[in-house]
């Protein structure tokens, strides 16, 4: 669906991304992980078209990203950024409804369906008439997710691309897992979903994991291939072990410094 090829981004003398290749396929949930400052958000900005790479190309659905018209792009790809502040008292529902902007209000029924579907998927129905600035960080995140979903929720424009920058960072445990389950479900419907994640056990729910470190793609593949104690430990600089839980899940667990295993 969208492919970054040899993407390099520099700011001043610093290299934020160094010849990164990443392919976000339709029908697949891709998790982008890595330590702070690894270049995850920069790569997402490049894929979203916010930042032109200094070298390398981005191709969306067979066409170079810069050749897409902005409105045309907005019908196919939605982006959820980190901490979206808002100093005006829009209600949560009004914020979600802004997601329908690219559709131009031409099909009110389709808009209504999209808003209802987005409200249910992101579990924001109860927040609908509340002022956005009064919501908690996690509630805001769900509202922004609903806005992104409403944006591309229209029949006939497949495949669609969803770019999520740390969509679970402020969510409670239940909503973290619900969001990941939703992202996976959307991928099953044929969407291409990319989520920047910090929690590696959440990332293990993805179909494909890309691990960035210092602007370089350190590893990419299935969760089983990438999220090994060796790779993760090497990149994050902390000892990690794989443990089996009582319910039979395989879990990545960090070992606090000093608690040598």
């Amino acid at each position: 669906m969208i492919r970054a090829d040899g993407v390099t981004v520099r700011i001043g003398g610093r290299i934020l991304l160094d010849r990164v290749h990443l392919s976000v396929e339709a029908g697949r949930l891709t998790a982008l992980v890595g330590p702070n400052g690894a270049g995850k958000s920069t790569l997402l900005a490049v894929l979203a078209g916010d930042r032109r790479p200094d070298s390398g190309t981005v191709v969306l659905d067979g066409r170079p990203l810069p050749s897409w018209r902005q409105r045309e792009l907005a019908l196919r790809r939605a982006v959820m950024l980190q901490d979206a502040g808002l100093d005006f008292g829009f209600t949560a529902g009004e914020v979600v409804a802004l997601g329908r902007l690219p559709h131009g209000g031409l099909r009110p029924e389709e808009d209504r369906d999209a808003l209802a579907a987005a409200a249910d998927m992101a579990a924001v129905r109860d927040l609908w008439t509340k002022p956005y600035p009064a919501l908690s960080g996690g509630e805001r995140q769900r509202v922004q997710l609903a806005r992104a979903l409403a944006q591309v929720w229209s029949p006939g424009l497949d495949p669609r691309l969803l770019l999520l920058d740390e969509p679970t960072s402020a969510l409670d445990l239940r909503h973290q897992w619900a969001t990941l389950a939703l992202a996976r479900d959307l991928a099953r419907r044929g969407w291409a979903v990319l989520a920047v994640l910090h929690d590696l056990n959440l990332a293990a729910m993805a179909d494909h994991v890309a691990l960035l470190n210092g602007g370089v793609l350190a590893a990419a593949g299935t969760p089983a291939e990438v999220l090994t104690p060796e790779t993760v430990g090497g990149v994050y600089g902390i000892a990690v072990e794989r443990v089996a839980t009582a319910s039979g899940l395989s879990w990545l667990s960090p070992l606090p410094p000093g608690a040598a295993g």
Partner: protein
Amino acid sequence: MSQALPAAGRAGARRILPALALVLVAMLVLSLVLGAVAVPPDRVLAALMGQGTGRDAVVVLQLRLPRAIMGGATGAALAVAGATLQGLFRNPLADPGLIGVSSGAALAAAVTIVLGGHLTALLPWLQTAWLLPVAAFAGGLVATRVVGAVATRDGVTSAPGMLLAGIAVNAIAMALVGLLVWMSDDRQLRDFTFWTLGSLAGADWPRTALALPLLLVPMLLLPRLALPLNAMMLGEREAGHLGVAVQRIKRQAVVLSALAVGAAVAATGLIGFVGLVVPHLVRLVAGPDQRLVIPGSALLGASLLMGADALARTLAAPAELPVGLLTSAIGGPFFLWLLTRRAR
């Protein structure tokens, strides 16, 4: 099939526009009735229909009507520019003066008042009466152009950059104004001081006819930016993801706002408070949707300035108070009252 969602906006928000339109009509009537000589509504109506006495016709048609129109258009233009820029800068407390237009106009006005004598001595065909508004308008646009240019890099204008550049340009313009005030003689000082207080006293038909298109064009075009401006309140990147041509909208919003404020300041001098607070008042009732805030601000801004001017003409009759004093004197306390009421 899922249950229908509740309406997202505020209950009754849409009723604000008809309500404000009624207020505007009431203020128009008031501003034709009130003045040094009161003309009762029935005689105002007769004069408007061309059936009034000669004196009524002169007072209503030649003196008060152009003034009411100019006042209404100026108030609307200031308020619409305020609503637009507050959305653009994502700051409910942004004043239209932030983009430098008011201080640029003030500088040009001070130059004209203090140094205009030398200019008209060189170029006798220049008419001082027309020179002042034209210079103020041009000064306002030049200052905004400077602010915009400073804040633009590689074709991208940064909104925070504009705010900072606006502060610097305002400071420079005000320093130069101070220098001119220092150089001025007593009459010039008085003229300039009165100009900064704002007045509609000069609003006759020729001036109104000149200013009206400049005031109306932004007012007719800015509502078209309401939806993209709504999206831009989420953030510029977010608006871009929603398909908004952010740089183009930003440029249009700034240019049209500068036109509106520049024309308003040129026509009436500095009238504070309207551009900052009117959009705020509309938002308190209607919520932040620019599709309501922009037209609502136009109606309320027009009403406020018309009403204030009617009072300005009557309170100290036969003398006139500067209307800019009244807008701040009435609006400020009212706004404070609203804020304390809401804080509770």
